[in-house]
């Protein structure tokens, strides 16, 4: 499959509008301007596109809900807050192919009759901020954004809103609070953002990669699009691969590409001839898998059948020398730091889990600690506003499920599991 999302990114001038146009860019927007909004939504629904941020919600459904709300104005917000550890898939779009995203948002704006769009960009990507600001200015100049896109009467304005270092703002209601100038804490649902989101108005929050798929759907149509990859959740998918592989990076592959192919063919296999020990397939919050699960197709419907989730498609690979207790501990420090503090089970529980893991890692673990880790985890899961707490719980439960011996070994003082990981 030829690259679509990452098309042309080797060209050092790929972020320039002239280069993007010369490769067929903004043609889908021109086509969309002659389509009826409801037909556009129908096309996206029929395409089978599912949200690429991690939850995999059908994009067409979300759009229908928002379009069905009679309140105006409506806001289209691009979630560019990718903060799930291991995830860097949106970065090449933001930095190297910004016009694909802008085109996707302008098309989506017309479909949703949303006249205002924001790109909520994580504060950790200052270069992307400059690139996007420049690209948006170019798009205004060329008439692809503004009060009347290419004289069509379709209005769409777009601005970048910079986050300030809070993982939780990747959660859509926290993101909306942050956009409104508030602390980035999640809101209770319902009401859902599609009915009452940013500035109390219907708001559609879609991931960078999701919105970047829209021009392709408009270009080739829902039928051909739905035949790319797994028909249950089709399309091209970006996988960010890191850890102990020979060629870490972002790979664009059809949805449903097996984990084994991603790691061994595209990412070049395990470094230094070592053996694979474990892999986190979809970002730190998704369940870790042992090597015997490598044939799992990486898509939203297959991964749960193999004991994990697609998440953001962020594959983190651990070789046989990795101390997985240390990995779990580092992951928990992350969750403790990023818990927004709103829900007690998450705020307190992540700290307790970190403390228990710390003493196990430091050789002061107690035999009852394994049970305690499980108890605390299960008392966080499902008891919080947003999925951050579930993520923290998932990490512990699944590392214990597959690698309990390593935790027990640490507690017994058997460090044959422990290896040089810095």
């Amino acid at each position, binding site marked *: 499959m030829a690259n679509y999302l990452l098309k042309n990114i080797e060209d050092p001038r790929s972020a320039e509008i002239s280069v993007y146009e010369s490769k067929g860019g903004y043609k889908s927007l021109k086509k969309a301007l002659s389509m009826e909004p409801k037909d556009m939504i129908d096309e996206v629904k029929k395409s089978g596109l599912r949200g690429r941020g991690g939850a995999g919600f059908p994009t067409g459904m979300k759009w229908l809900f928002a379009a069905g709300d009679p309140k105006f104005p409506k806001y289209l917000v691009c979630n560019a807050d990718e903060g799930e550890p291991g*995830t*860097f898939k949106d970065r090449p779009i933001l930095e190297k192919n910004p016009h694909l995203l802008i085109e996707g948002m302008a098309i989506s704006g017309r479909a949703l009759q949303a006249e*205002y769009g924001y790109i909520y960009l994580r504060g950790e990507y*200052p270069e992307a901020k400059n690139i996007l600001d420049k690209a948006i200015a170019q798009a205004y100049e060329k008439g692809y954004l503004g009060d009347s896109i290419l004289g069509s009467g379709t209005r769409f304005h777009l601005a970048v809103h910079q986050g*300030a*270092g809070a993982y939780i703002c990747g959660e859509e209601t926290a993101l909306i609070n942050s956009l409104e*100038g508030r*602390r980035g804490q999640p809101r209770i649902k319902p009401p859902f953002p599609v009915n009452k989101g940013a500035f109390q108005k219907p708001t559609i929050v879609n991931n960078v990669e999701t919105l970047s798929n829209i021009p392709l759907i408009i270009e080739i149509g829902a039928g051909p699009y739905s035949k790319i990859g797994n028909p249950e959740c089709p399309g091209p998918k970006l996988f960010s691969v890191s850890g102990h592989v020979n060629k870490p990076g972002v790979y664009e592959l059809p949805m449903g590409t097996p984990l084994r192919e991603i790691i061994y063919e595209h990412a070049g296999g395990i470094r230094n001839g070592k053996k694979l020990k474990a892999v986190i397939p979809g970002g730190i919050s998704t369940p870790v898998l042992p090597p015997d699960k490598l044939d799992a197709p990486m898509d939203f419907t297959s991964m749960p059948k193999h004991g994990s989730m697609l998440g953001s498609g962020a594959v983190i690979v651990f070789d046989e020398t990795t101390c997985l207790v240390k990995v779990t501990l580092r992951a928990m420090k992350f969750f403790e730091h990023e818990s927004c503090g709103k829900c007690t089970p998450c705020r307190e529980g992540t700290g307790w889990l970190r403390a228990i893991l710390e003493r196990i890692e430091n050789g002061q673990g107690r035999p009852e600690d394994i049970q305690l880790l499980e108890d605390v985890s299960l008392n966080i899961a499902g008891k919080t506003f947003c999925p951050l707490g579930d993520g923290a719980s998932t990490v512990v439960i699944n590392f214990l499920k597959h690698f309990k011996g390593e935790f027990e070994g640490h507690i017994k003082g058997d460090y044959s599991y422990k290896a040089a*990981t810095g």
Partner: protein
Amino acid sequence: MTLAQGAIAEIEALRIKYPSGRALLLPSLYIAQKTYGWLSPEALRAVARHLNLPEPIVKGTATFYAMYKTKPMGRNLIQLCTNVSCMLFGAEKLVDLLKERYKVTPGGTSPDGRFSLVIMECIGACDRAPAMLVNADFHPGLSEGNIFGILEEYK
């Protein structure tokens, strides 16, 4: 104090982008931080006054986000990622080296005021780990061999 004229102009230029004045708060905090180096109590008060927001709201918002600095920073801010993918390639060792060379601990500033160090939670550079931001500059592919050469450029 009141906000510097340049900062006010920058904030006002953004007003057209948002339907509410409150939404200007995050960008205003960035602008104030850029102008004064950090968000002192006076700077927060000035932002509150300019946006006509209660001071506790402004402070409460600023302190929620890791990238707003409510204590003085060194001349250069090192934001080093030690999350899992960076940890696998020795990020924690780099923290130790920084401690040793510059006497700077995570969350703190070196005695000579040259560097502040903040540990980051994934900066999306896992394929080029470990990585850091120094001020607004991105430096991936760090190692014990190259980190001091990079930091040498920041006085």
